[in-house]
């Protein structure tokens, strides 16, 4: 006979520990040589919660007020509270990159930063990169090179690609592969993605 206690069901992981304390320390940053860990720079913050707290997030240039428990990830805040569903929830453990958004210009796994610690930062999601009625040149390059099949990883790739090209406007293929190494696809679209990144770099020379 074994009696299952709540903690045995999943164990107390580092992540759930962080989430239950409400301390703003965890951050996932998309890989690549130039990536820096946000957590290394973040000073310790005051303890809040466990109930909902009112926060303001700067998303795509607009201030959005919402109320979340401190443990709510930026990804869940975007998707469940603000209906910004472009960032996808796939691994929920900063492995696959499907939830990639830009925070202060850096590619970040939105599943591994808490909504409360994203306050005061400029958050850019895929919904915010295109001009009204137009495709962003990176998205357009992904379409042209068929760099997507089911498409569930695609918004994350597009955002990782944006963070990379913003910093590296003249990339080599080797640099591009390294920069996008933190994004996983199951359908197998990498051949199209390689072509799309280089083409997107060329398209973005137009000044966007």
């Amino acid at each position: 006979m074994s009696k299952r206690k709540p903690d045995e069901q999943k164990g107390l992981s580092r992540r759930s520990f962080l989430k239950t304390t409400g301390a703003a320390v965890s951050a996932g940053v998309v890989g690549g040589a130039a990536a820096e860990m946000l957590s290394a720079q973040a000073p310790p913050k005051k303890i809040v919660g466990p109930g909902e707290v009112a926060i303001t997030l700067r998303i795509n240039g607009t201030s959005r007020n919402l109320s979340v428990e401190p443990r709510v990830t930026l990804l869940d805040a975007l998707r469940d509270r603000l209906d910004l569903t472009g960032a996808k929830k796939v691994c929920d453990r900063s492995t696959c990159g499907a939830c990639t958004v830009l925070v202060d210009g850096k590619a970040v796994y939105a599943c591994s930063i808490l909504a409360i610690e994203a306050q005061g930062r400029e958050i850019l999601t895929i919904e915010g990169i295109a001009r009204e009625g137009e495709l962003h040149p990176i998205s357009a390059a992904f379409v042209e090179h068929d760099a997507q099949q089911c498409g569930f990883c695609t918004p994350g790739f597009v955002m990782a690609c944006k963070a990379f090209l913003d910093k590296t406007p003249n990339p080599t293929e080797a640099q591009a592969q390294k920069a996008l190494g933190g994004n996983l696809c199951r359908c197998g679209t990498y051949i199209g993605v390689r072509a799309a990144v280089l083409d997107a770099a060329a398209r973005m020379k137009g000044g966007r």
Partner: protein
Amino acid sequence: MASEKWPEAGKRSLIGKRVTRLDGAVKASGRAKYTYDVNLKGMLHGKMVFSPHAHAKVVSIDTSAAEKMPGVRAVHIMTGLGKEVKCQGHEILAIAAETEEQARDAARAVQIQFEKLAHFVDDAPPEKAAGYATPLAEQTTGNPDGGFKEAEVISEGIYGAPVITHCCLESHGQVAEWEGDNLRVWASTQNVSGISGEISDGLKAGGVTVPASNVQILTPVMGGGFGSKFNADTWGVACAQLAKKAGRPVKMMLERDQEIMAAGARPSIYAKVRVGAKKDGTLTAWSSESWGTGGYAAGGGNPILPYVFTRIPNRRSRHTRVVTNTGPARAWRAPNHPQMCVITMSALEDLAAQLQMDPLDFFLKNLPFVIAERAEAYRQELLKGAEMMEWKKKWHPRGDKTPGPIKRGLGLSIHTWGGGGHPSNCNCTIRPDGSVEVFLGSQDLGTGTRTVIAMVAGETLGLPVTGVKVNIGDSKYPPSGASGGSTTVGGVSASTRRATNNALNELLAKVAPSLGVEPDKLEAKGGTIRVIDDASKSLTWKQACAKLGATPITATGQRVPRGPDELISSGVGGIQMAEVSVDIETGIVKIEKMVAVQDCGLIINVKTAESQVNGALIMGVTYALFEEKVMDGASGQCLNPDMEFYKLAGIGDVGNFAVHFMTGTGYDERGVIGLGEPPVISPGAAISNAVANAIGVRVPTIPITPDKVLAALEMKGGAA
């Protein structure tokens, strides 16, 4: 009457061209709404509670604490007291709350007592799986003992592939919303037209009566299935139950660990193989003792060996099913074929190495032992692939003798698949203003189905792809089959061709008088209806449709189940070659290049067809090098139910690809044949053979991980 036959080469406006997928922009801009993205007013979040034990009996379930927790709105018990659970990930109950966090808290607060029972999770050879192993009947053809006597060289080995999972990026799940007696379900499914009945039946068993016709399934886009999403599944029914109990819509998507544990497994298959040949390489005999597990339900995984070379004259094979307390098997892209392929092609390549023959020559020599009508295509494909790989220039006998730790090698493999077309119905409506719509209860898994339908409709009506609105992903549309087994393109292209052609013939009959000819003298071409061979007598599409007056045309077309169909066929072949480099100090295998040569009849969209092959090669590299669902014998639990330790290849892992399609005379006239499965079959075998060629010794099973490479090298003294 316009003929429904596919137009000949040279008369095709869209078919065989490179057309950009129509839903590309909506996906690449993040605007596509997958099931996981559906947010409805008042929607609750559901969570499943699964068994943590591999084998146990449910003794008690106490949900009282959970039900009192903040935000909890409904609980639905699925496996009641006294019931047996047979794997980690067996469903127990489902719970719904206002937020996802609250639902997760409540799921953790449920108190369940289990009586643990003995479990077995090892896909061990039958002699080590006593009590769990069921041998199936031996299959014998010819005289195997005589064949081995006749053989001058005999190779023996053990080969195989472990259980892997589907790991669809959009996990399994549904959003259920009741409106009176009607149920609307957004489902991440490969089977839009097929799962209403399953949900209706499942609800009935739980005391809720709703006819299947009141259950609408919606799947405008979906995030990957690969064979794991044919059913609504127990959690789909539970989602609808929770929504009924709470009187609110419920979204319930599996969490990643649940997805890996419960929602998909490719059966393992291993085999002890003996294969014999004469000194000139002619095969004389095959024998195999195979085993594997399809989980507790013992589904799937019964191989037919040898693969492709099914006509080796003397052969014996026997398979043993090992029942384990693991998640049930689901169809995994090309069910059984990758495993049968890696077993057969590895054994044959080992034999060729023993004969000191180039496997290319060895495979060519033994083509008389493949299905007769495919032999010539394989010969052409092998020669084409050899040219693309520069095989004769690069190939060396087993074991790269060049100095240094990096060893290069080449391997090849050949495969086959059926295809055909599933049953499909299409409705085409042409309106007096010239707008056109087609409706099919089909789905686009990311393969490009939506685009192919638009191309077929556009081809038939003489319109661009943008001239036809394609409506799929709704069970209220005319039914189409599930997308599995590479049957979708055959099904939907045939039904769409017929529906649009039938509609066109009605239109031609209406406009013929105004052009002063009989309808059979008219054709739809370049956005006009015109007299055949006299383009001066024509009407624009809009002018022609205006002749309809107030009444639209609506016509249907079908791909009837089974039976011959002049638009489609089945049975394809392909060959693949891999070039790898292996670091014999670290055991790391790197893919340098993959070559794929494939036939699949008449290709509708070359662009998305290439993506299918590239994607299959990547999926193949992934299962060849990385994937394994690792089970712990002592606890019965999965040790890698996450995407960090259940590894998928990244963009830097896959090497460079060259893809060639066999098209034109001899291929196009076969009609449309599906492409989803075939190119995913050979990569494991081609890569395994390339590694053996590089390092001079076989790594017996995939995935070919560094530890296995080093172990294999150690067995033969450490050098390539």
